[in-house]
């Protein structure tokens, strides 16, 4: 690889990028939009569940039970129902997500030291939320006026790595991977195809530039932009969303560098097999953005997927970086724990580069 020729490409590409307001805008604004949108929108926390109560007892004990739901902070009392029909209607319309049904003579049964049954009706259409809410209800009911009866086994639960169980701590480090998977490939894919569309690529073909010089020369500026995006979103995650940072920043940045070159490489690969900017854009979105949402473990844990799909997720580099990012940011993991992911990413990047340089032939057809 000739250094002068390479630098000529890098200089030309950098100038073109800087002078294109759209490229600059896309690379600065879109990651920010996505970070804030998803940082705020995606919350797996269960708070303020809309609660309805059908109190058929109307006793001090029944009132105390419904009060303890509201006081727990997880539930918000929306309405007091009079009849079973009202309950059904409210659940159907989605006005309440859960209804507590306290039977008649609840207070009397408690006084008689019997164990009266109360009913919880949960809207199960959002199964994950329903499950969590039902668990909260279970805990509240179990603790209600329960005299401390020593149990033979004591359960002491400690949540590690994300002690307050804030979902933003879980979502934002995953977003680092998704954002870097979404935009850099898009930019690079367009960069080469634009030259194909304008015809300037033919001048490149009929020049002494080797495919590797041209590809690498194109990659360097886009890789740097992607890396700058990375630093931007990581700092915002730390300072704005206050995601705790447990691990080594240098280690995260080093792996991020590998990852961004991998993703811009994918963009280049896309552009070597497409002819128009439109197809390049669509293909880039289909193979990068979509799987990085669904199959990277960003939102849906991979270990709960069927085995075949788990194998499928290994095709997408975002999966490795989601684990790396969470492993470093939340768990403080180092190379000794995460080396497999680093190695796979590195290998992946090299293969992508090799494929792109191999696909990029200096021929028009």
């Amino acid at each position, binding site marked *: 690889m000739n250094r002068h020729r390479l630098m000529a490409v890098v200089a030309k590409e950098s*100038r*073109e990028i800087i002078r294109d307001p759209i490229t600059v805008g896309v690379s600065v604004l879109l990651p920010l939009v996505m970070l804030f949108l998803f940082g705020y929108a995606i919350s797996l926390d269960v708070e303020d569940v809309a609660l309805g109560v059908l109190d058929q007892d109307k006793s001090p004990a029944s009132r105390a039970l419904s009060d303890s739901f509201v006081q727990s902070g997880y539930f918000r009392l929306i309405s007091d129902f009079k009849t079973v029909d009202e309950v059904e209607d409210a659940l159907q319309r989605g006005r309440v997500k859960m209804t507590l049904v306290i039977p008649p003579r609840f207070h009397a049964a408690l006084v008689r030291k019997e164990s009266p049954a109360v009913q919880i009706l949960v809207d199960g259409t959002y199964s994950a939320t329903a499950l969590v809410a039902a668990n909260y209800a279970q805990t509240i009911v179990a603790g209600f006026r329960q005299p401390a009866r020593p149990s033979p086994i004591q359960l002491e639960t400690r949540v590690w790595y994300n002690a307050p169980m804030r979902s933003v701590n879980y979502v934002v480090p995953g977003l680092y991977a998704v954002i870097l998977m979404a935009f850099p490939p898009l930019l690079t894919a367009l960069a080469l195809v634009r030259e194909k569309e304008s015809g*300037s690529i*033919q*001048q490149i*073909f009929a020049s002494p530039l080797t495919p590797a010089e041209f590809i690498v020369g194109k990659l360097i500026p886009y890789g740097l932009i992607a890396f700058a995006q990375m630093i931007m979103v990581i700092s915002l995650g730390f300072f704005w969303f206050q995601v705790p940072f447990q691990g080594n920043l240098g280690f995260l940045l080093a792996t991020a560098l590998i990852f961004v070159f991998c993703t811009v490489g994918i963009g280049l690969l896309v552009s070597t097999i497409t002819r128009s900017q439109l197809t390049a854009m669509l293909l880039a979105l289909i193979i990068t953005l979509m799987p990085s949402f669904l199959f990277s473990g960003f939102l849906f844990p991979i270990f709960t997927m069927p085995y075949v799909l788990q194998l499928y997720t290994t095709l997408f580099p975002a999966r490795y970086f989601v684990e790396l990012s969470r492993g470093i940011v939340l768990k403080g993991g180092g190379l000794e724990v995460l080396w497999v992911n680093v190695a796979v990413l590195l290998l992946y990047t090299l293969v992508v580069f090799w494929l792109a340089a191999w696909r990029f032939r*200096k021929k*028009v*057809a």
Partner: protein
Amino acid sequence: MAGGGNTAWIIEAQSIGRRFGTQNVLADIKLQISEGEIFGLLGPDGAGKTTLMQILAAILDPTEGACRVLGFDTVKQTASITSRIGYMSQGFTLYDRLTVDENLSFAAGVRGIEGSVFQQRRQRLLAMAGLTQFGGRRAGNLSGGMRKKLSLCSNLIHEPPLLLLDELSLGVDPVSRRELWQMLREFRESGATIVVTTPYMDEADYCDRLALLDHGQILALDSPDALRRRGEGTVFELTTNRAKEVLKVLTDRPELSGLQWLGTVLHILLRSATTLPNDIVQALQNLGQLQPVPASLEDVFVQMTAPESAVQAPAFVPSSPSPDSTAELDVVQLKGVTCRFGDFTAVDNVSLNVPAGEVFGFLGPNGAGKTTLIRAMCALLKPASGELRVAGVDVVKEPMRLRSRIGYMSQRFSLYTELTVAENLSFFAGVYGIDGHPRVEAIAWASDMIGLSGMEDRKVQELSAALRQRLALACSVLHRPAVLFLDEPTSGVDPVSRQRFWQLIQSLASTGMAIFVTTHYLEEATYCHRLGLMYEGRLIAAGSIPALRSGLSMKEATRMETIFMAYIDREKKAAPLTEAVS
């Protein structure tokens, strides 16, 4: 010579062919070009010129045969070729966001030209191209001619022994064209070999040798003079007022290869190597003034590509619109029309009157404002100022009423390629609200007039460019518009079909239709009754060719290009032009 082989040829093509899928784009091309030659590849769009150039530049592999360039094999020794040659592909190949200097330094950088050598060459080339003071301007803000000159500079920066130029002058105004050729002649002094392609027959004279290319095959290969000599004695012109009788004499004569009316002059082209039979000579001499004229390259080209069957005489009588037409008869009246895109004035204060039945041609390089003006007349875009009356309708106020009175055929024939000929015609008839029996009649009239009968069931995608062009024309005249606009209708069509198309246009005009045509083929000017010369948005002159000639008191035989250039020069003197558009 820097080559690796033992041959003396700079380019040696051994029966090369190229297929794309099932389509044979090039077949059996044999070429030998020696050092220092300027070699021209001439032919219509789609003849295979670009494909051949790409093979010579080693950026496309031939599917048959082999080719050696500078002594290297184009398939096996690609890098040795691409690192030496200069290749300018079709269209604009600069980086618009880079400045003139940056474009040059990129071209130099990838070829390892640096330091003082680069600076020296940069200065010399920019001076030669007249771009010295524009070094800091972005390429995207240069005019078409300047961009071409810069492209040429970036290909000369490494002083290549072989320069391949694809469509050097396409979309370039005549002045820049002259300057480009001037640069090439200077560069040639260094002993370099130059290969150019062009669809303009008039550029051929710059070349030492020419290959006429058609449908992927070389029809002839010789010097321009020798090629013209092939047509010696086969071209005549008849000046006459008795067109009907003349056509009777000439109908169905197997000796004829082409007939073309230019006003009152009939251009008669015989098949190659035939002579005009005595009976015809006598008959014609009785009807007008017959004289032999030298063959042009286009004549020779037509002779070589004309179909075997006898030529049909044009079935119409040329009509010249009455010269004393009054304003009421003018179907098009433009007063001070100006169109702007942002700061850029695309059409600048154009006033023009055109009577019914006239074929009016807009000539000018790409970007001169021809298309914009036509769009304004069709109410497809709103002019910034000025009055437009077309077919008796105020264009700005009543665009909807205008639509049914005009026909418009755009640069890319707007046809539905998945539909058949009949379906396209029927659709466009429906668009103009022609239904039931009138629709059947209109379609029959148009397809008969335009010669589409018998191919109603063929899909448009199977048709040749020439047939598509005719179908598009048919679609645009179904409703018998008062004014017809044709935007570059003949680009991409071979000379024979182009002549046929012009005959159609003239026969439509003889029905009283006013027809506006834009073209960048200057030789097509002769087919129009009157011409408008467009340059940088202004209509710098309008009139018939003789009127234009006498306007600058030029000689009888002055070529259209010379006339155009003279008008541009006059315009430049009158108001110094800013060279670049913003």
